[in-house]
């Protein structure tokens, strides 16, 4: 099976170009991009959803950023940044910027619509009974928004994991290495290994997020039953989000 040849060769599972290292690099890029993107997108989404000010920014930004040509932008940024940064930063910063730009729209729209669609009557009741604006946000709007925040995060994660492969195009690590190098060496087994590992990584991370969501979102919102059998049923028949 040429498809699994590379993966089954023990020599490819150690060393600086072995699969574990590449997976680790891929995970680090992904996490860094998601953390930075969340640091930008979540506060904006919360602010706009809570105050209903600047809703046009959300829609506009989401549309513009979705039409982003990732590869073109990364090359452009490398050319622009190369004189500014010494060392690997000249490649890392452009890659991260592109991944962040990709991750911001889904997280931002998810957060915004989660907060904006939090039960209006509940929010009115919260204000009327004397919650401060911050308490309304922290105790009512954010808990109610969690399902949509997580779904935005999942969308962003999948996109970042798959797009992080292009970092290899500007001579960085990650699973993209296997695809780019495999192509250069006409080693289709290596390319297949890259594709399979990216897909597996995406699946595993998606499941992880699903699990965190499962653990943190109130059962009052997911409307899951209160007994363990319904939990089992749900696990057998995974998410509808």
């Amino acid at each position, binding site marked *: 099976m040429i498809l699994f040849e590379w993966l089954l060769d023990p020599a490819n599972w150690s060393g600086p170009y072995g699969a574990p290292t590449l997976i680790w690099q891929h995970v680090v890029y992904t996490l860094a991009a998601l953390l930075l993107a969340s640091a930008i997108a979540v506060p904006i989404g919360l602010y706009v959803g809570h105050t209903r000010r600047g809703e046009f920014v959300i829609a506009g930004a989401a549309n513009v950023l979705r039409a982003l040509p990732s590869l073109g932008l990364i090359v452009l940024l490398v050319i622009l940044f190369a004189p500014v940064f010494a060392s690997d930063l000249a490649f890392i910063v452009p890659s991260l910027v592109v991944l962040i730009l990709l991750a911001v729209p889904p997280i931002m729209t998810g957060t915004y619509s989660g907060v904006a669609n939090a*039960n209006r*009557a*509940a*929010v*009115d*009741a*919260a*204000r*009327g*009974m*004397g*919650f*401060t604006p911050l308490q309304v946000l922290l*105790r*009512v709007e954010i*808990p*109610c928004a969690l399902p949509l925040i997580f779904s935005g995060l999942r969308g962003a994660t999948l996109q970042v994991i798959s797009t992080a492969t292009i970092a290899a195009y500007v001579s960085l690590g990650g699973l993209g290495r296997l695809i780019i190098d495999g192509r250069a060496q006409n080693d289709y087994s290596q390319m297949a290994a890259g594709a399979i590992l990216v897909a597996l990584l995406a699946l595993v991370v998606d499941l992880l997020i699903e699990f965190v969501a499962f653990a943190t*979102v*109130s*059962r*009052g*919102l997911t*409307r899951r039953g*209160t007994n363990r059998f319904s939990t089992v049923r749900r696990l057998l028949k995974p998410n509808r989000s």
Partner: protein
Amino acid sequence: MIEFQGVTKLYDGAPAVRNLDLVAPTGKLTVLVGPSGCGKTTSLRMVNRLVTPSSGTITLDGEPTDRMNVAQLRRRIGYVIQHAGLFPHRTVAQNVATTARLAGIDRKTARRKSLDLLEQVGLSASLAERYPWQLSGGQQQRVGVARALASDPKFMLMDEPFSAVDPIVRGQLQDEFLRLQREIGKTIIMVTHDIDEALKLGDQVAVMREGGELAQVATPRELLVRPADGFVADFVGRDRGYRHLGFAPIDNGLKLASEPVVQLGASPAEAAEAAIDGWVLVCDAAHRPLGWTDIARLRGPVREDDLNLSSTLAPMDGSMRELLDAALSSPSGRGVVTNTDGTLRGTIALGDLGGILAPLHRTGAERHS
């Protein structure tokens, strides 16, 4: 006491509430009622400053609200809204405990309090760990009331609290709320568009008209007997002459005829002997009235199918309206009056009611002159 002094609210220069002067007395339920767009909800929401008045002052026990910290002000006032507004991510017990926790009560005490309150609003403690989506609309509304009460506020604002549920549940909630209010005696302002609800619940009813003006403030009985103008008369409704009887209790000395009765299974001969003018009243073994039977149509012993169920029953502690209705709805023309435990007390013929109602009518007329 909640007092509005010359309160006006303008939206884009157009008045939603115009120069409102109103006192909601301590321990009483004041109802704001009027057609949609009359500014009643705006008035209510100005009390806890969810809406800021354009001019004028609102005071709580003499203290102007505009000088208070807004969160502190709201925590002093229970707030109940139309769709309950429960927090969907919190259990029923957590929802109820919310206001107690805001008032600084510790978690354990707040929880005990919330369980007590659930019982007080007629909900089983077994619902405490449910989430709002698992409750019916009526149950959610009860939880909403319990939540408002958990901080034991002196004042309460209720915005159409019973209008999102079906008429039968609404009636139950109203009755139970009246009973509760008799115990707790909060100073309440309630908004409704339903004049019947206003007349039923209010100690005092403030009728508002479009443009945010107060048309009349009066007791429910006075509104029916002496509406201030055509608008109020129209709004109060056509059958106000009949409805004001709802505020007149049945006189304890009311003379009733004793009614011969039979039980289910009685033979046609027994029924015929007990019948007056062709109708006989059927009771159960505990002497509680079940319905009337037309002896001309009996084809054997009295069965449940033979009962005419059209008549209403007037309890002795009820109103003259119920008494008149019992007589009007009875196929025999004799209104059935029961004791408070539901057993038969006696009957009164429709013809005899005129003499009893006439003095009531005179008092109405005197008040009018």
